[in-house]
């Protein structure tokens, strides 16, 4: 409508301008012919052509403006048509989706009705069945499940020690069969093999025990009978599995020169109670066993006579009949309630005492702590042991023989998962990988009077870096580790150990078939460094 109005005005304007153009020149010519003296400026008619021309230009400009307006309107109309077409398509798609939803809803309603019918039939069947099902279930719940499960771990790596100039691949494989006989008895065992200098060791049991709940599972009393990890401290029981220990090596006090026996045959009574709110626990472990065993012990006798500095044995089955006896206790206290959101703190004290050679005493005391909150964890222990040595006289005497053996060992470690560090700009690919790294540091040491030359090994095996500097009366070690936790129980570990032994102590050596060791003073043991990498998988 507006466009038609504009066109009419435009047409009229054009016609007027054409008429005026034709009339003005004839009038001007007539005026000039009648009065040749008259000047064009003096005649008002002479000014009209200029005004008409100006008007004509204005009309022309108006015409062009109208055309531009018209073109712009046409373009807008075309764009509107496109938008309308797109909206119509969307409406069509929504209509289709709505139809499909209605069909799906109808199908679901039909399925629900069918399911309700089936459930009703099943309920009727169960409700009317007077067979032995309920009775059988009750019998089963009393007798237990009779189930079998296998867990374990495997680790493979490569160790290098500079002082021993030894490169060595390592392998450790351990399976833990568990047979739950019923709700109150379970059999647990550990079979393992390790790559050693002579090849892979025989697959043998290192643990085999019955876990018994004599008062049922609702009472805080469990019995463990058989071959078990020594509960002195936390290390052997809780930290020694290859995928649990965040370091590749063991701390010195539990490693190659362990100051406590790793395993024992006997009977434990243990349990835990909640003394406060959730998370505030206290637990106890009491045990009696076959007593500590040393290299010179009867049944083992890997060295010919007792000597200060000889190593403790794990219980292997060859040294059960030792006439020894041992008893111990461990108590742990957890003071922080879960609701405080401050992590879990453990304070621990334990003792182990026994006779290692008929009437000779072995005593050990251990205190420790463990704490974990968020990405941070730390734990440490300090232990002291005493061993009563036999009275020697005559040819059996050796230099320094006649005192008693005292040993101290300690370690403290700390670890931090890198996810605790703010890292907003790493990107989607790098961030989850960065979060899986844990950086760890550990300091450990052992003090003792002597070392036995016959014990010294320079071949790296699983959990031991192969450094001869570890075999020092005053060994010290700083370990740095970087773990990449691929999964909660799969870890790729890298570790550097600096061995920094202090001077002092005695080196005993049984040469040939002699039953009396030679003695030499250890002045300074050189420092050493070992580098290791290992993949450990818990399954």
């Amino acid at each position: 409508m507006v466009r038609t109005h504009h066109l009419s005005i435009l047409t009229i304007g054009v016609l007027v301008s054409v008429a005026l153009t034709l009339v003005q020149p004839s009038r001007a010519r007539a005026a000039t012919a009648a009065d040749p003296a008259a000047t064009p400026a003096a005649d008002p008619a002479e000014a009209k052509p200029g005004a008409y021309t100006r008007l004509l230009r204005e009309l022309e400009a108006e015409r062009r403006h109208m055309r531009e307006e018209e073109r712009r309107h046409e373009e807008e109309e075309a764009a509107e048509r496109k938008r309308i077409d797109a909206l119509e398509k969307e409406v069509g798609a929504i209509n289709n989706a709505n139809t499909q939803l209605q069909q799906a809803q109808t199908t679901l309603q039909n399925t629900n009705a069918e399911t309700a019918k089936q459930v009703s039939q099943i309920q009727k069947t169960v409700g009317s069945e007077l067979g032995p099902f309920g009775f059988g279930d009750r019998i089963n719940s009393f007798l237990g499940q009779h189930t079998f499960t296998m867990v374990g771990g495997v680790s493979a790596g490569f160790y290098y020690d500079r002082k021993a100039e030894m490169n060595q691949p390592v392998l450790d494989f351990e399976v833990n069969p568990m047979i739950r006989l019923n709700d109150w008895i379970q059999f647990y065992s550990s079979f393992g093999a390790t790559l050693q200098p002579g090849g892979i060791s025989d697959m043998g049991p290192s643990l085999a025990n019955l876990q018994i709940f004599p008062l049922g599972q609702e009472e805080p009393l469990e019995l463990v009978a058989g071959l078990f990890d020594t509960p002195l401290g936390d290390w052997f029981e809780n930290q020694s599995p290859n995928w649990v220990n965040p370091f590749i090596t063991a701390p010195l006090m539990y490693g190659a020169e362990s100051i406590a026996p790793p395993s024992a045959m006997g009977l434990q009574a243990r349990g835990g109670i909640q003394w406060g709110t959730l998370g505030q626990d206290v637990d106890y472990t009491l045990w009696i066993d076959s007593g500590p065993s040393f290299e010179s012990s009867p049944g083992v006798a890997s060295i010919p006579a007792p000597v200060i500095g000889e190593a403790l044995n794990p219980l292997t089955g060859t040294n059960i009949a030792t006439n020894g006896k041992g008893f111990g206790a461990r108590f742990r206290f957890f003071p922080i309630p879960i609701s405080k959101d401050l992590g879990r703190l453990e304070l621990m004290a334990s003792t182990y005492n026994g006779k290692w050679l008929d009437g000779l005493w072995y005593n050990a005391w251990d205190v420790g702590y463990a704490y974990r909150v968020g990405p941070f964890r730390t734990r440490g222990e300090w232990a002291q042991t005493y061993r009563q040595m036999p009275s020697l006289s005559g040819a059996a005497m050796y230099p320094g023989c006649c005192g008693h053996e005292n040993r101290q060992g300690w370690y403290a470690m700390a670890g931090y998962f890198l996810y605790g560090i703010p890292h907003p700009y790493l990107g989607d690919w790098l961030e989850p990988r960065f979060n899986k790294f844990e950086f760890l540091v550990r300091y450990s040491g052992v003090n003792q009077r002597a070392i036995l030359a016959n014990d010294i090994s320079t071949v790296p095996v699983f959990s031991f870096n192969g450094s001869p500097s570890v075999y020092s009366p005053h060994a010290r070690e700083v370990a740095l580790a970087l773990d990449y936790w691929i999964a909660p129980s799969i870890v790729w570990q890298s570790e550097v150990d600096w061995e920094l032994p202090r001077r002092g102590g005695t080196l005993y050596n049984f040469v040939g078939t002699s039953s009396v060791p030679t003695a030499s003073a250890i002045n300074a043991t050189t420092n050493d460094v070992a580098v290791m990498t290992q993949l450990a998988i818990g399954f």
Partner: protein
Amino acid sequence: MKSLIAKVGLISVVLLGAAVAAHAAGPTPEQQQRHLQLFHEGQALWPIYCNHCHNARNPAEFAPYQWDQIIMHMRTMENLPPEDEDAILEYLKTAR
């Protein structure tokens, strides 16, 4: 003699009926509430207690019957209080 047999038979029928009725009844609202409470406690304890010694394992790693065995072992090794063991086990078996 017949009287004795009748009494024993009657007692047996009553006991059997009670057992079947108890089984058919299903969990009570109180039992369901107890399960829910255990689940929430286990959810809070699982990362704290397990991480104390090693990284907490995913509940989906083992079947419920395996968790029965593993937690029986871990309770022994870690001296877990019985109620805490119940809560962690409930969580691990349910959150798979």
